[in-house]
């Protein structure tokens, strides 16, 4: 799990223009100033990195890095 969180943080780093500390509890839409296109860019990076699909209903229900990591882990287990 820590691996997944670390990987997500690394993928998120280029979008983190205000250098907010990235950890599992970081609320992506609230704490990072990324616009809607940037968010989808980031989601795509996560999809490509883990080779999984993240549907939009999951995206809209996700807030923190930890929640995203949990979903990624659930998909990796399935595969």
């Amino acid at each position: 799990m820590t691996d997944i969180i670390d990987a997500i943080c690394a993928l998120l780093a280029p979008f983190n223009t205000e250098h907010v500390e990235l950890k599992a509890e970081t609320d992506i839409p609230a704490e990072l100033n990324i616009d809607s296109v940037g968010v989808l860019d980031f989601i795509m990076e996560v999809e490509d990195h883990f080779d999984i699909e993240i549907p939009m209903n999951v995206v809209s229900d996700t807030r923190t890095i930890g929640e995203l990591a949990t979903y990624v882990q659930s998909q990796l287990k399935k595969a």
Partner: protein
Amino acid sequence: MELTKTISLAVNSSPADEPVLSRTPRSNRDVPQQLGGFSTLAQGLDYAARGVTGFNFYTGRGALDVVLTYSELRSKALCTARKLLSSGLKRLDRVAIVAETNADFMITFFACQYAGLVPCPVPYSMYIGGKESYVTRIAGMMKAAHAHAIVTPAEMLDSAQAAADAAGVALVLTHDDVASLPESMTKLHGFSADDVAYIQYSSGSTSAPKGVLISQRAIMANAKGMHFDGMKLRNDDRAFSWLPLYHDMGLVGFCLAPMLAQVTVDYLATTAFARRPALWLKLMAENRSTISFSPTFGYDLAARRINGEAVSLDLSAWRIAGIGGDMVRPDVLKAFADTLSVSKFSPTSFLPSYGMAESTLAISFAGADLPVRVDRVSRAAIRSQQKAVPMVDGDDEVARSFVICGKAIEGHVMQVRNEAGVVLGEREIGRIYVSGPSLMSCYFNNEEATAEAIGSDGFLDTGDMGYVLNGEIVITGRVKDLILHNGRNIWPQDIEWSAEQLPELKSGDVAAFAVEGQDGDDEVVVLVECRTSDVASQESLRRDVAKIVHQSAGVDCSILLVAPRSLPFTSSGKLSRNGARQKYLAGEIDVFAAH
């Protein structure tokens, strides 16, 4: 040649024993192309169903996923119409449909046409962490539509159910639920030429959404204008779209209008485009697509993300690259054309256009086969005389370029008027009005808003500013407060309202508006009255506002703290958004320094 291509490209990665999925062909061989002459959408589909063309849906990674010919669409829509009626829905009941880019949405939309139900496409959720504001948004739409049902993809059921509960809508159906209903045996009583066609919720803020009611007559008139005046449509055209189907440009431009011309459309979901913009161009090259539209920002995204792959693409078939939905920016189009010149993209393919949901979709087109034409005028004369005075020389400091957007489509009239309502002459800047058969019937169930928009003379106030040049329209900006950001309409009220939820703020403390950024796109500025001089509290307020605005509107803003009582109000005590904007631009508002 086309045939071989179809077969070779249609090979999906399916196992050998499964039938190979193949795209619908470019055009019908045995059925002549019929443009116009239909009186309803259902009649148009009845005709299109005689051929072999239709809709193709691609996955987020660019593989052909689902093929729906017009013939299949018709038979499935007829069956679904009977199923919807067996759920107790009555003629003219409004049915909200979550408008995902897929076959289920298309079938449900056309089922409503055959069943005499009024479809109201509503958005699907697109923003990270945006579920709550999404539910509020579609609940508002369903309430305004007095919807009787919502039909949703299964994975959105949670949100749809929550929205339906909030709006008091009893019937919530997934597409699977609809499929398992029995077929009603009553005679289908679809729409006739004088009836409604659908209601579009792309107007108004989240708190007060306005449903544009479009009649069968209006959609027929507008499709005709697009087919003949806009695209000069041909039998061998093939369309491509990633535009959302809950917006007029996606629904009318790339579902209804192509169907009414029996044209094949290839679709990429909007979210798939946003994640991989280059797929748009790759799939267009693969399909030798001839027509596609996008707001300016889409061209920008795609050009920046295609990288080294442009050289391997052949976009020579692309004859109409339409631009609509925001101010057309010549610099962005030039950059796109430069990047894609190696793909044989022709800059004369660009087709600037002007329109809005209140006129079904299209009002004017600049003219197919012409390069983008720009009028360069003096900035000073715009401000001091409200005139567009040509200025050939002069840098961007003193001159600015506007794109010429063409004459009104046939049967429609555009006028530019001053504040007193007097029709202005060439090059005089004023408010743009339009009349003609494409206009909406009304804002559904909202007489007040309708009366504000359409005058007793039958002219619609577009809310845009512009001038006439040799009979063609040139758009210079907006009167209304609407913010256009990356092709999205954002209502400043939504931003202000969300910020005012913070305990430190109250109603009237926040003003949101757009200013023109350096690149010509809207930049969103949010002015917040701040009552504390404590630097740490100021900083935390700024951060809180940024957070909450971001969650509710999904947009980057400049949050600026200003002194108490520095925002201007109108005589009736309402916040003057435009007044705040003017004062801000003139440097008359003291902005606290950021720390």
